[in-house]
């Protein structure tokens, strides 16, 4: 059933693309090309959610993780005049936030939603409090023109010319999918998220695995934040994550806690942003602009309402694991 759904989505996407491409190849490529930068921060942020929730930890602190990582990535990148160092520091900041979330939710067994809210408020406050002007990074991570692939007709212009974090991010998403479904780590992680005592009784340390995964997820959140600061725009501003971490939660659920599903959902979002823009560019619509901007949100609700079915989240999510209560 799920497989057929994904096939259906893939096939109809290709058909739609082919149709529009035959109508106007430049605009169509451009819209799909632009969907990627719109989608990438959402997709990476959604991976944070997927990784945490698959091991049973609800993470609504993604927004805060991105914000504070973007902050350190940018300012240390600027101070050290080295964006690679900034990227490293941004990721390490994410790791620290992941560890903080781990301590709160795994060791202290705090309510996971509260823990996420704390991270969000704290991140917004501290980055705004410490913000200073007149810092510049030497340059951003620049788009890469991929030699052979870039020359392939139709596909080349879409997949080439993105920045290195974008490529790494997409590879990571596919890698995460493989790891989650094909490796011992993935099987154990999913078990811990579904039924932690089963994993525990099989000799898998629930606490350790959750720590590892939430921390790695933090690093991914750091990557998403660094992407915004160092690749997408090259500046840091207060609150400039603009709610992407929350939209990512919806994307994660939309994608059914599956890395590729979430990536597809993020692409759908990115695509609807790009299409929205294109509608304004082509002035095909005379309806008020607010209605155009509502479009992706309305579409998402409609699609979910129609295709719905009950999405089933990892069963142990949100519940602290009490080892002795097996």
């Amino acid at each position, binding site marked *: 059933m799920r497989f057929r759904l994904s096939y259906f989505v893939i096939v109809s996407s290709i058909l739609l693309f082919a149709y529009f491409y035959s109508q106007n190849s*430049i*605009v169509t*490529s*451009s*819209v799909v*090309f*632009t969907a990627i*930068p*719109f989608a990438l*921060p959402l997709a990476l942020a959604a991976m944070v959610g997927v990784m945490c929730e698959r091991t049973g930890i609800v993470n609504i602190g993604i927004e805060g993780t991105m914000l504070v990582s973007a902050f350190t990535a940018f300012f240390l990148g600027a101070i050290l005049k080295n964006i690679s160092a900034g990227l490293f520091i941004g990721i390490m900041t994410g790791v620290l936030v992941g560890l903080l979330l781990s301590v709160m939710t795994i060791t202290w067994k705090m309510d996971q939603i509260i823990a996420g809210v704390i991270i969000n408020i704290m991140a917004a406050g501290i980055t*705004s409090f410490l*913000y*200073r*002007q007149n810092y*510049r990074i030497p340059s*951003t991570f*620049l*788009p890469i023109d991929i030699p052979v692939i870039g020359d392939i007709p139709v596909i080349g*212009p879409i997949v080439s010319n993105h920045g290195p974090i974008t490529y790494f991010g997409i590879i990571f998403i596919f890698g995460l999918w493989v790891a989650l479904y094909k490796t011992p780590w993935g099987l154990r992680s999913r078990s811990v998220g579904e039924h932690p005592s089963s994993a525990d009784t099989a000799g898998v340390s629930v606490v350790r695995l959750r720590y590892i995964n939430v921390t790695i997820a933090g690093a991914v959140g750091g990557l998403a934040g660094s992407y*915004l600061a160092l690749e*997408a*725009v*090259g*500046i840091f*501003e*207060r*609150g*400039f994550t*603009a*709610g*992407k971490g929350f939209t990512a939660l919806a994307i994660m659920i939309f994608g059914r806690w599956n890395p590729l599903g979430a990536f597809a959902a993020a692409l759908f979002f990115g695509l609807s*942003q*790009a299409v929205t*823009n*294109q509608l*304004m*560019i082509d*002035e095909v619509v005379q309806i008020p*602009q*607010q209605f155009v*901007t509502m479009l992706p949100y309305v579409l998402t609700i409609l699609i979910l309402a129609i295709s719905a079915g009950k999405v089933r989240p990892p069963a142990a999510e949100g519940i602290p694991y009490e080892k002795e209560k097996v």
Partner: protein
Amino acid sequence: SSGTEETAAITEADCGTEGAFCIGLVTDTGKVDDKSFNQSAWEGAVAGAENVGGFAKYIETLDPKDYATNIGQFADAGYNVIIGVGFLMAEAMTTAAKQYPDIKFIGVDQFQGEALPNLTGLVFPEDKAGFLAGVLAGHLTTSGKTGAVLGTEVVPPVRYFGEGFRNGVAYAAQLLGKDLPATKLIYHAPDNAFNDPAWGGATAKQLLSQGYDVIFGAGGNTGNGALLEIAKTPGAYCVGVDADQWGTLPEAQPCLVTSAMKLIDKGVAALVEAASAGTIEGGNFFGDVGLAPYHDFDSKIDSAIKDKIAELTPQVLDGTVPTGVKL
């Protein structure tokens, strides 16, 4: 940041006493270091204070419902001039001006319908700046495609800038006898409109990939996001907004051919000085708008174009050449 700017003569403690000249500035919900109009207004206040030997201080507003309270803090502390930034504060300013007739109020971006003697609206014909930038853009474009990445349509200055720019391009087409397609105006959704640089950048990418080669970025950080993206693309031009962004956003220099300026700092400083001198009048005060210098692009722009812009500037500013933007 302590939020104060002292000059040798006067300190905060003197405010409210005879002979002290104190200027208070209330930001809108942005911060005073927003690289945008709050910052420009504050810089103007500081410059004004320095010139007249006064003292300046700001309060950053968190919640738009606090405008009146924050204005009241300065009023109660005996400040002589209170500057309110942003058109959303207009109502609170009017109320305060009536309540404190002895204090001079300066409302940045606040058009005054009815004139109060102690309330001066510092307003700008943004459409004219946008128009001039548009004319330049119309001359510079090789693909003929021009666009603008903007904050939300519902904030009037943004719309004036954008539509002015579009009409400017159309005017250039007429001048050149070319058939340029209309400039595309892309507005962000109202939510978070001025603080979504990632959206601005990606939208600029979309325009660039469809061959748009002169793009106007106007909308706080959102617009800045567009400029930064364009700066990565060789051969494309971008146009900044408000201040001369050559200085405020140096990262955009590779593409920044000019900025559609609206000189808030200069206007605020002038009004502060007028207040100090007692020459300030109620009603509207029109601040300066115009194009920023071309900086490094000066040598790359055809002198015929530069001459044309120079010739057109006074005509647009005095209204002989109408921008056609409905205000």
